[in-house]
């Protein structure tokens, strides 16, 4: 640790150094050969992509830099949710129309039966 200055009310240098020693006694795992190979494979893949599509990769890189991936992410998410909502709306609207048609058939039949009764009533009354 290069610098041990601390905020007022913080630990004393002696305590900070002891804490530093304790923390450092827990060693992190070194990067494995497999991880290093993966990192280099990413580099190779990028070079291949750049060689195969030089104009496209330059354009994508410029667009990403200009717009910013993080800036676009929420907008993309919002657009995705909106599209999903629209699709769900269209689907449910179709099913509702189908149900309405079905209901209207029953309704028409019920009304027709009602008329039949109405038409039969005077005849029955006359009898």
């Amino acid at each position, binding site marked *: 640790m290069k610098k041990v200055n601390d905020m007022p009310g913080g630990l004393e240098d002696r305590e900070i150094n002891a804490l530093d020693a*304790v923390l450092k006694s827990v060693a992190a795992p070194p990067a494995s050969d497999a991880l290093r190979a993966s990192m280099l494979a990413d580099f190779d893949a990028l070079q291949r992509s750049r060689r195969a599509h030089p104009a496209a990769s330059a354009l994508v890189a410029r667009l990403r830099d200009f717009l910013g991936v993080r800036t676009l992410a929420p907008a993309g998410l919002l657009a995705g949710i909106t599209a999903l909502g629209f699709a769900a709306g269209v689907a449910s609207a179709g099913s509702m129309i189908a149900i309405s048609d079905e209901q209207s058939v029953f309704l028409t039949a019920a009304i027709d039966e009602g008329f039949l009764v109405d038409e039969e009533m005077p005849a029955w009354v006359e009898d």
Partner: protein
Amino acid sequence: MTFENVSDEELIASAGNGDRLAASELISRHADKILGVCWRMLGEKAAAEDVAQEAFLRLWEFAPKWNPDGGARIDTWLYRVAVNRCVDRLRKTKREAPQDAAPEMADDAPSATQVLIGEDRRKSVLAALEALPERQRMAVVLCHYQELSNIEAADVMKISVDALESLLARGRRALKAALAPMRQELMEGLAG
């Protein structure tokens, strides 16, 4: 080919022009440090490796446009990308499933230091570190483990030096309190 006297900036310029050996040398120089930060931030080796790999992928993408006059150092830039990705991942993990288990231990062959200190001690230190709020943990990891100065760590975290020192002070106090019950054991372990 030896890169002993070649600076990081020269290496990144070469890597940006497709020089595979330069890219390999950058990995040799920085992979351990970046993985170490990620491992201490995330407490899990597989996740740490993913983030470290992502950080290097961003470096390869950025290499052709690296501006040596921009003032940023490669390691500072890599630390910044790595810790930001770690924070993203921690927040995502917290949202999906809060984890209260102790951090996963490294599954590599233990070093001499690791053999000397017991697994319980290791777990205690890592659990205390993991219990810190993410910004405090980041400050502690960058200053204590990566040996960055307060100015460098503040630059990585994009905060003022005062804010960094405040985070560091609170983080150290919390660590001291968390490790207090095993203070004697820790000190004996270090002395032994």
